[in-house]
């Protein structure tokens, strides 16, 4: 078995470091690929032919940067997550870019995403700890998101969160229980001064996992920007991506009509249930116990009148389902779709269907991530946020209605 270091990257903060720590706890040398920043993006643009999607550009650039920083050649842990879309072909781009840079010794390490592979990983000794690492990331990231619009010093908050992330990574590397590690860090933001309570609009972010979870320019810094514009942000946990993988595995193989064996379906449902249970435990430990892991079947039901759940690519129907769920729950005043440039399922399909599906009942805005055309993008976002704020204020003044859903007080954080 190779002993070269495993490079983890493309999940974003704090997931990359937590996952790397969990791998080190299993005795595997691991480190992160580095930030998906502008430098990574520019390196990717220089290395790849044009027309690639943003995640390909970011990850290729970060991989090249890591491969040429003097480190010993490692292995990049990659996913073929987007199925019939072209994420599966990132490997072609990685190999070519590494070869041109004279770094063909850098390897690619695949996570087997077939139903068999998922089951094997879930049932292995490593499965639980690796999953915990991602769930801890969900808890920390969500708590940070909730706090941002309500603290006076966001820089201090983020510095504190960064420190907590390192502490949690250390705990995981030492083999400590994830829940206990979180509980030990519960009070990390308590002494940070807060702003007075006020009515803030809620923005539901949807998008492919990369644009939702990878912080920085890959998502236009939107969670920070929105918080600075006095808006609350909600987005699904990364665990939803895992739940979606289990859901796919329960369906007939894409393009086939034959359903999986009942026994396998049963196993996968148990895995989903286990995931949901563990998710709840970790979120409660992280002081975000009301953070929800949406039910993928329910999302499929919501989406099905507009886009059959048999249509498969990337996040499939999930984005559409999340937007319709936001409408159903009535908490958000704006659905904001972060589009990774070149993401076909997201931009060319879901965004084409969503306006008709929402039918004006919930404002919708799609912002594409490339770094171009900044002026119009800010203007469009400002326009939508302005109307979202007015909606939230009008709802808070309504004579009736659930106070928890109308111009509500800040969530616990």
């Amino acid at each position, binding site marked *: 078995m190779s002993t070269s270091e495993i490079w983890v990257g493309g999940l974003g903060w704090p997931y990359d470091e937590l996952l790397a720590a969990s791998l080190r706890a299993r005795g595997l040398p691991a480190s992160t690929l580095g930030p998906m920043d*502008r*430098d990574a993006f520019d390196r990717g643009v220089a290395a*790849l*032919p*044009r*027309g690639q999607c943003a995640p390909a550009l970011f990850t290729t650039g970060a991989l090249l940067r890591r491969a040429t920083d003097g480190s010993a050649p490692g292995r990049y842990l990659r996913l*073929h997550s987007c*199925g*019939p*879309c*072209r994420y*599966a*072909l*990132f*490997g*072609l*781009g990685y190999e*070519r870019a590494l070869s*041109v840079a004279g770094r063909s010794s850098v390897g690619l390490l695949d996570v087997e995403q077939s139903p068999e592979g998922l089951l094997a990983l879930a049932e292995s000794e490593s499965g639980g700890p690796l999953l915990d690492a991602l769930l801890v990331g969900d808890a920390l990231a969500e708590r940070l998101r909730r706090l941002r619009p309500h603290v006076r010093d966001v820089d201090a908050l983020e510095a504190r969160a960064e420190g907590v992330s390192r502490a949690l990574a250390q705990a995981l590397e030492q083999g400590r229980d994830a829940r206990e590690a979180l509980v030990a860090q519960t009070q990390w933001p308590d002494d940070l001064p807060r702003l007075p309570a006020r009515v803030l609009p809620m923005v539901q972010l949807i998008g492919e996992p990369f644009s939702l979870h990878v912080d920085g*320019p890959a998502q*236009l*810094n*939107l969670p920070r*920007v929105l918080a*600075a514009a006095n808006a609350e942000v909600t987005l699904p946990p990364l665990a939803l991506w895992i739940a979606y993988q289990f859901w796919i595995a329960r369906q*007939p193989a*894409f*393009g*086939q*009509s*034959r359903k999986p064996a009942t026994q396998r379906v049963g196993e996968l449902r148990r895995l989903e249930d286990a995931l949901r249970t563990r998710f709840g435990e970790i979120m409660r430990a992280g002081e975000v116990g009301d953070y929800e892991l949406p039910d993928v079947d329910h999302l499929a039901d919501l989406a099905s009148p*507009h*886009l059959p759940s*048999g*249509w*498969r*690519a990337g996040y499939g129907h999930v984005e559409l389902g999340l937007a319709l769920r936001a409408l159903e729950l009535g908490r958000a005043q704006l659905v904001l779709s972060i589009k990774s440039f070149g993401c*076909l399922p997201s*931009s*060319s*399909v879901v965004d*084409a*269907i969503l*306006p*008709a599906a929402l039918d*004006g009942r919930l404002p919708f805005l799609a912002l594409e991530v*490339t*770094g*171009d*055309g*900044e*002026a*119009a*993008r*800010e*203007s469009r976002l*400002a*326009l939508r*946020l*302005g109307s979202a704020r007015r909606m939230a204020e009008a709802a808070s003044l309504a004579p009736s209605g659930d106070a928890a859903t109308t111009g509500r007080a800040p969530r616990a954080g």
Partner: protein
Amino acid sequence: MGSAQANSLFLGIDVGSTTAKAVVLDAGGRLLAHAIRRHRGQIQDALAQLSASLGPPESFRARGVTGSVGTSLARELDATPVHELEAAVQVVRRLHPDVRSVVELGGQDAKLVFLAEDAVDDDMQMNDRCAAGTGATLDRIIGRLGLEGDWLARLTLEGDLEVAAKCGVFAETDVVNLLERGGSREQAFSALARAIVLQNLAVLARGRVPRPPVLLLGGPHAHLPVLRQAWAEALTSIWGRRGVSPGSVSVPPHAQLYPAMGAALHAAEARPALCLTLGVLKTREPLPGLLDSSEASRALTSLRSALRSSPQTRAQGAALHLGLDAGSTTVKAVLLDERGELVASAYGASTGDPLEDARRRLDELNGWARGRGRELSIVSAGVTGYGAHFVEGLLGADAAPVETLAHLISALAVDPQVDVIVDVGGTDVKVLEVEGDSVRDFHISNQCSAGLGSFLAAAAEDLGVPMQEFAPRALSASRAARFGVGCAVFMDTDRVTFRRDGLSSDEILAGLAWSIPRNVWQFVIPTPLSQLGRRFLLTGGAHRNLAVALAQWRYLSEHHKQVALHPHPELAGAMGAALAGSRAQARRGTRTRFRGLSAIAHSRIQIRRDPETRCERCELRCQRSFLELEGLDETLVVGHTCERGATAEGTQRRSHAHAPDLISLEARLLFQRLLPTPEGGPRRMHGPVIGIPRVMALYRSAPLLLHYLRALGVPEEDLRLSPFSSPELFHSGVRFGANDPCFPAKLVLSHVDWLLAQPEVSVLFMPSVTHAAIAVRGCADTASCPVVAASPYTTTAAMRRDTGELPRDVQVIAPSLGMLDPEGLEAQLFSAFGPLLGVTRDDSRRALAHGRAAQRRFHHELRRHGARVIARARNAGRAVAVMLMRPYHIDPGVCHGVPTALAARGVPVLGLSALPLGSSESLTLRGEQAFVTNSGCAEKLWAARRVADTPELVAVELGSFRCGQDASILGALSDILGGANKPALRLHDLDEDRPVATLDVRLDTFVDALRSYEARALPGEEDRHRSSPEVRP
């Protein structure tokens, strides 16, 4: 305005991407005064001018500010910010309470508002990044053509739509080409106005229908009445199609001031701030200055010494050789002496009339000669460039090499050992890989002008910097703005952003210089620099700019390349044409064909380009121009794709030189009856008429599906397929809006719209094919592109957007069909058609078996023809072009007649579906390619490998704009084909409009390279064409 008076008045300021506007309102909201200034990025200067005109802001009772730039100045101006669209709507509601829809065009943005009756649920839409349908596009073209305000004010709509709507840069190229091919300025600008409207309807309305009355705001609407006419024309048509009562489409007085007025009203009514000022969503570290090292300084000295600012020689002998390069931005003429040295040159901007431009250049050369007391004795003439087709006859050219060859000839005269020629001209970039005396491979940019000289010139003008100052000022900057790569329009937006962020003009100019090599090597050329040769020669007008030349040198040197500069980079094409002419004339040994300056000057020329000159011989309907030149008996025809349209009368017959075109055969076979309907099946006399859009996966599965339906008893007359795609079909449907997917996806909407317009169609069959059955093996999956599979849902969503229902009552059948799942396929088809047609399950099973047999027959026939064509070509020592494409590229409206054009040039063409399959092993993808999940990608990779391994096969890559699937294998294809040491033609980014300007250049260059390849690599007759005889003396 006196300060006491101002104190009771309200000031509204609107600072956008191009202009700053200010208005003064009284307490009642009446407009008292206004001022407008173009700021060119100098915001503070513009504000100062406005202040001088209307009074200092602080003197007013209250101030409101708006605009993409203005809102960031709220604190500085002590003004209340308000979003420009909300500001404009505020005024609209106040002044025009009955208006239902508002369209505002600004400098860089476009907005459409559907006003709600309750004034709460207004639906406000803005363009996203692209400025295609905005004032920026109009400004570019007005400036490029030098159009006067009076002329624009009088212009009314005429002609047809022939200009791309999707992108402003593409539109500009189309406008210039239209003019060069004999179109009038009136036709060209009318086409542009229609394109602007179409683009905005598609991008902003996205299926919703703007209800009347419609109000048009913004500077472009205020100054261009033709735009209002275009809106009225389009909206009236849409209203008629959608059953909406027509109404007014009007431009109010002061249409460009509404946002500023709204800002003033906002301040006057003491409303709270309505605008959120967001921080910058990204940061860009600047690039280093161009001259930041001694090495760079030495390189600059070397480049400077290589350049020749003027001819350095006296003519040796009296005989002179004329060369003319009729480009789309500039027209150049040169005179060379017997040694091939430059004696004189003339250079000027293209006016869009290549014949007049040619005459002017010749006149200038004649003037040069007269100034020296000599008569010009021209003994040969050569012509090249986009306008060469027109100019060749006028001059009587001895040679008319395609411009790639002209540049090759000129480059070899400067450096006989050159490996790579880099030509950055006005409207395109050409990179030629040289092997011996021929072009081994080449890359030409598409219409995108991000890496071009014309973009630099436009940007400099916008900054108020004369071109002669560009280089010195750029070289003086200690750092450079980091522009994005790829799109000129986005770079224009970047420029505004950089100014706003405080970068100096010099730093922006330096960044623009850097953008040239970054765009060329990161955007235009898919081949890594490490795979190109070592000796590079820079040509083309952009490299006359030493800042650009140095940027290229620095970029290429970092990749260990040797870089030299052509002594006359902007004249290289014309010099190459002159050399070609002299060699052609010498080889013939006869007198030159050059008609003489007097004959040229006095020839009467008539160019016709109208509906009657359009060729109607096939679906392409090529728009031709007829050129009648005094003294010539025949009418010259330009703009045809094949020989059938080569004469004014046209002919139905193919010439014997027209090679086999199996793409056309494939298109016929797909939709014709291949097997007789089996006896004993269901019979129907009358039934629903089933409309099927001829799009997407139907180009793969048509035999199966159509024979299935026929076997279920559906009579032929009850199957209604939409026609092959055409510009008319596309434009008619796309205005009903969609997202911005690839062109084939946008076409679905147009085809469905066409079917809905056929009143007899009561059922729409739009299968969502999730998986294709392909011969290639070893790949992870054979799924359809998700855009292809989802096209029925995205299309119906767009069609339902306006009212929640389809435009008329029709049953939509959109089953998910996986072609690899026999049981599932049968179940889905029966579920879809069983109840509709009243057939049994057994009927359906038998019909599907019949459909499968037809599909097998189709493949068998196509491959049989393919094998025959390849065998014949092999025996003749000829190559066959294999189109690496997706199934829907068979549609002539999608592939724009490229196969026909190649066949007309004597190159047999076939699609990858016609390739004989070969061994099982050869069908299996390996290595990283095995992770392919898309059927089209798998087929392209397999076919590319087959081409690389088979000497008599060469590749023509076709790809549609924004095809994400193709982008992911671009590098792999480049590696496979690049390693094959044979020419390949790459036509990426095909879109709605035929790339007329660059297509002929690419095809002619490819065919020339192909003939050289045949001569050296394929066994055959000795007298086959070798390298162009004009290339070497």
